[in-house]
């Protein structure tokens, strides 16, 4: 409930200009990331926590930590992990890729595909490059793009409801790899 109020607050705030507006948009994005967990079928693991890893510098760390303080995903506590290297992201369920992650995007995506990690970005063009979900602004509101090919590659079934809310983008990675579009 509190999250919803929070979300509504940020929703209107997102329309404002300036840092405050950007900060509110970050809060919305953080809330969206948390909400994504409900619409994706996660692979069963023995991990005790549900980990969201952040690679590279991002403004979402603070609002995510705020959310993770009193929330769980299923029965597992939510843990936010700030990672300096790609290797540190191992065991995470969601990997938030910043605009400058410090390593090539391809390797990140490769790891994500192999370890069934949902990749989330907030940089224009990332979705087309293979990031599964990438935040964007649609009609002056916070929205998100979705690369269904990336999700398929990562082996993460996603709820059609979530798909219906997203702006779908073409998967250029798949085209490059197989030489022809699906």
């Amino acid at each position, binding site marked *: *409930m509190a999250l*919803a109020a929070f*979300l*509504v607050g940020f*929703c209107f705030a997102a329309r404002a200009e300036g840092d405050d507006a950007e900060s509110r948009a970050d809060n919305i994005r953080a809330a*969206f990331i948390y*909400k994504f967990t*409900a*619409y994706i079928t996660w692979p069963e693991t023995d991990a005790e926590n549900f980990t969201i890893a952040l690679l590279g510098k991002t403004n979402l760390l603070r609002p995510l930590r705020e959310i993770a303080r009193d929330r769980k995903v299923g029965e597992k506590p939510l843990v936010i992990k700030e990672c300096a290297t790609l290797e540190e992201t191992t065991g995470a369920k969601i990997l938030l890729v910043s605009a400058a992650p410090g390593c090539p995007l391809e390797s990140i995506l490769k790891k994500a595909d192999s370890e069934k990690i949902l990749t989330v970005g907030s940089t224009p063009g990332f979705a087309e490059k293979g990031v599964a979900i990438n935040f964007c602004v649609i009609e002056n509101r916070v929205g998100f793009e979705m690369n269904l090919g990336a999700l398929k590659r990562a082996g993460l079934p996603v*709820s059609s*409801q*979530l798909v*219906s*809310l997203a702006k779908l983008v073409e998967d250029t990675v798949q085209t490059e790899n197989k030489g022809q579009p699906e």
Partner: protein
Amino acid sequence: MNWFANISLRRKLIVIQLMTTLAGLTLFGIFTVTNETRLHQADLGRKSETITRMIATNCTAPLDFLDGPAAEEVLGSARADDDVVNAWIYDAQGGLFAAYSKPGSPEFNFPQRSPGLYRGEGGFLTVSNEIEKRGEIIGVVSLRINVQQIWVVLFQSMVYATLAFAIGMGLALLLSLLLQRVISSPIHALVTMLKRVSEEGDYAIRAENPRRDEIGALCEGFNEMLGKIQQRETERDAAEATLRKSEQAMKRMRAYLQNIVDSMPSVLVAVDPDGTVTQWNREAAHMTGLTEEESRGRPVGDVLPVLQEQLEKVRAAVREGRRLENERFSVRGEGQEPKHYDLMVFPLVANGAQGAVVRLDDVTSRVQIEEMMVQTEKMMSVGGLAAGMAHEINNPLGGILQACQNIERRVSLDFPKNVEAAQEIGADLGMVRHYLEKRGILEFITGIRSDGTRAAGIVADMLAFSRKSESRQVRVDMAEIVDTVLRLAANDYDLKKQYDFRNVKIVREFEPGLPSVECDKTKIEQVLLNLVKNAAQALAGGKGENLPEIVVRVAKEPHFVRIEVQDNGPGMEENIRRRVFEPFFTTKEVGVGTGLGLSVSYFIITKQHKGTLTVESTPGKGARFIIRLPLAQEG
């Protein structure tokens, strides 16, 4: 239910059939319509819940991600169903998140509801469903659905039910008519037949019976019963006819016997052994003035006082079963002529009956007639004597009368021969005659002639009793005879006998168209003159207050001509009246009447003309003599 009990079987069948069908079809219709409505409602409810749940599911993400347009798009999917009019999504705080209204329908504000079905007003149904995300309720979706369709379905169901009802009723009517033909028609025919039997009383009528079912058995039973009744009726009719015949014969016989008994001119009284009256005939009633009812059961002595002195004899005869025949006895009332009766008692012996029949005849008249006959016989002998004496007396009388006449002639101055003879002897006939007159000799001679003539008349009257009297029967007009007699009588007055027709009023009452009667005119004139003279004498003798009057009537009766001579003189006492026709009976002074006039008249009328002569009189009121002459003379 009285009306139902009283209507015909045919109608009962139809009513029962139709009522049963009506009830069945009504129940079926109600059940069908109700069930159809219920099913449709349930179906609609289920459908609405499904739609609502689907929308709730599809709204989870838009609500979760606060994507209003997406939420509205999901709600808009409800337009696929025409019945959904409005849809709303509320968030967990109850705030309206998204809304949808069917194009053309008015806006409708609907408060949030907990999940479930709600019957709305005006034919709308509201269905709400929670929006869940992993067990967490994040909102509610509500749909307002138009349920008018239910009424359409209900109406259709009712139309079908009504159609089914009409067809069912038609079939029921047909079936009842068929049943009526099969069941009630034969019963109706039977009832009609029985009514005919009752009205016409004709037990020969039979019910037609072509069937072998219970109704057939009923018809057969009735036919058998009618047969028995008919047989009994026939036997009864025959018995009744016989009885009726016997009764009629008995009645006729009884009436005939009663008639015989009543026709008898005798008093007939049946008595039981105690002398109590059991039967009483008309003559008895006439004599005593008591009807049979009044006298029956009373002692015979009480109702027949004349038998008072004979009772012991009657009782003895009844007791001993002995006949008593022609016991004559007389009863004399105070100041009355004696009455004579003949008494007979016949014991009843046949058929075990007890008692006797008493017969009593009033023979007073007969006794008197017998007495009169004795006198008539006397007259006959007088007649016979007169006939023998006639010549012997008439010859001297003739000599005397002739001599008297000659004396009178020979002293008469009228004959010249007398005058001559007197002169021859030197006498004056006038002087002689004067002497004879002076000495009364001529008067003596006249007296001799008058008395001689009277004596000759007596002899002639006596000769009238003689059978030898000649009779010249001629046909005459009675009115003419009466007129002649009255004319004669008018000129005949006799100072000595003190009657004078000039003071008497004569009234003639002649019936017109009288037939002529064959009779001896002279004799009848003699009788009538005698009666008229008697009447005049009676009127002269009486000092009545009325003007003296003689009425002479002539009238026709079936076999007689009746001549009445009636006066209004002093009349007669009964004992005189009874004796007026006796010869030599007279009430007149000596020398005035011979006592033969009426008896000669009686003789002329009864013996010579076979008629009747009777007299009726009431003292002080005059007398009436009645002559009846037969129209056709016999012998």
